[in-house]
């Protein structure tokens, strides 16, 4: 794909209201533009939200809330930090954030990938789910706040704890994985047991896990120009649910 010449549009987003910006993007996409360079983005909401297909976005600045919500397909690169709600219920595609990101990243995400270089806020990857080949992945290069992967039902979260300026904080906040009943959270290094949700325990990773981690890290390192071997040189632990669909029989008994 990268070799095909793309029809490109560069937009200066300074002072442009989010509705106008997103209308312009949608209109251009419908006319065959597939590469967007957005300069001076600052707080505009819903960028690439609901967009479907093979589109590429280079975002310079700080995109606003709910970037890439319901998105299916596009690749977004953010040169700086992102705010809250990135990839809300995202369906497919990839978001690469070369900075920190806010709260509720990848909420109820059901496909695609979100890579964050630095720290993330609270409630990242909550309600993530997977179905057959649709396995969403979130990689956090820094540390996370509380409730990482809460109510997770599928997908993969990889928490590295490496690229953080919070030297004194634990790698993850409280209540990690609380209520999870699907998917897996991989953590580089040790998992502080007191930060895990009730009933959860960290377990050593197996050969299959390592293969999965290696594949994800390779792509993550390539996208963010990081040293993949360095990332892989640390040990990994995993947190998995202890129940599967605990309420499956609640309304329709098997």
């Amino acid at each position, binding site marked *: 794909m990268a070799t095909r010449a793309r029809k490109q549009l560069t937009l200066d987003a300074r002072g442009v209201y989010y509705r106008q910006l997103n209308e312009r993007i949608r209109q251009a996409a419908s006319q065959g533009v597939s590469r967007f360079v957005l300069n001076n983005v*600052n*707080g505009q909401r819903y960028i690439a939200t609901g967009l479907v297909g093979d589109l590429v976005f280079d975002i310079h600045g700080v995109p606003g809330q709910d970037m890439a919500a319901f998105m299916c397909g596009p690749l977004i690169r953010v040169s700086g930090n992102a705010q809250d709600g990135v990839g809300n219920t995202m369906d497919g595609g990839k978001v690469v954030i070369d900075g*920190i990101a*806010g709260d509720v990243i990848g909420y109820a995400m059901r496909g695609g990938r979100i890579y964050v270089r630095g720290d993330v806020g609270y409630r990242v990857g909550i309600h993530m789910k997977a179905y057959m080949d649709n396995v969403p992945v979130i990689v956090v290069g820094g540390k996370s706040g*509380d409730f990482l992967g809460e109510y997770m039902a599928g997908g993969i979260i990889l928490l590295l704890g490496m690229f953080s*300026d919070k030297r004194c*904080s634990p790698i993850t*906040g*409280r209540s990690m994985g609380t209520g999870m009943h699907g998917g897996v959270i991989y953590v580089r290094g040790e998992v502080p047991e007191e930060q895990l949700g009730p009933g959860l325990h960290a377990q050593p990773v197996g050969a299959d896990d390592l293969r999965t981690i290696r594949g994800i890290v390779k792509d993550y390192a390539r996208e963010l120009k990081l040293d993949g071997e360095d990332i892989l040189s640390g040990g990994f632990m995993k947190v998995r649910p202890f129940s599967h669909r605990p309420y499956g029989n609640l309304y329709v008994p098997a």
Partner: protein
Amino acid sequence: MKAAHRDFDFQKDISGCGIFGVIHKKRGLLPGEMPIRAMACMHDRGNGLGAGYAAYGIYPEFADKYAFHLMCDDEAGVDAAEQLLRRFFDVAESEPIPTRRVPAVRKPPVVWRYFVSPKKDRPAGYRSLDELDYVVSVVMRINTRVPGAFVFSSGKNMGAFKGVGFPEDIAEFYRLEEYSAFIWTGHNRFPTNTPGWWGGAHPFTLLDWSIVHNGEISSYGINRRYLCENDYECTLMTDTEVVAYLLDLLIRKHGLSKQMAAKVFAPPFWDEIERMPKAEAEAMRALRITYGSAMLNGPFAILVADNSGLFGLNDRIKLRPLLVAEKDDMVFMSSEESAVREVCPELDRVWMPKAGEPVIVNLEA
């Protein structure tokens, strides 16, 4: 408030309040344009039913006087409030707060300001109070006894400016760009449980305390009753009012530090207390036991300012966003990073503080 007439095609506004604060640690004066632009960047976090600002260092020519900002339904309200004020204070200056007519700001109240100092010969029943308690009691008296008149700030060398409108409209109404301050806070309101009226806009203040808040205080009932026992009466029909008075009670009256007050508002969980070193655990236990009625339940991100500095605090499970950024001698606190970048594109450091952990920035002496 009227319900929407055409609820069948009503478009839901997805939003939450927006807050912004900035402090210049060396008391460098920052133009009003800075908080105005930052708040305008977060326009969509509010819905036009409330906005406001607090500014510190704006009245240097009256720095030793209490600056009373009053909003009144009509001239009669101003007269009644002024009559009461003059019984308790010597008034050095009295004038309308400068405003301009703004189409978006409909039916504003009459806003007036007084620079006052307590009378030498105080009314009977008020002689034993220390000066600050005396000022607080007059604020409470006006708010509860003078119909249609409310004090919306009462500190020295600071002032609140607030009303019903979007932040940029309220700023235009109060001609905020004409002020410069070393601490600014701003608020954009999306009222949920309480009316969007002039008195209910943020900031809420008492003496030189001011607070802007995104969230809701579910413990309002308990907090309000606790305050009532301590002679603070809530009259503004909005949950955030309790925080302004709790700050005065805990920090000024009871001598708690800002750090400790923050732990009263957002106490650590019991299991966290159990893992603390013994002395710290005992202190936290004592705070929770003593000040259970001052704990703030519910989601909040708050910015608190007074003449010593600015601090930001989240509820202990961070149900509202808060970001802190530094640039040279300035520290910013905001719901969104974009609001900070709007007024200061290059930043030295940006981070999101831990839930329940206050970020306290004091002015340098």
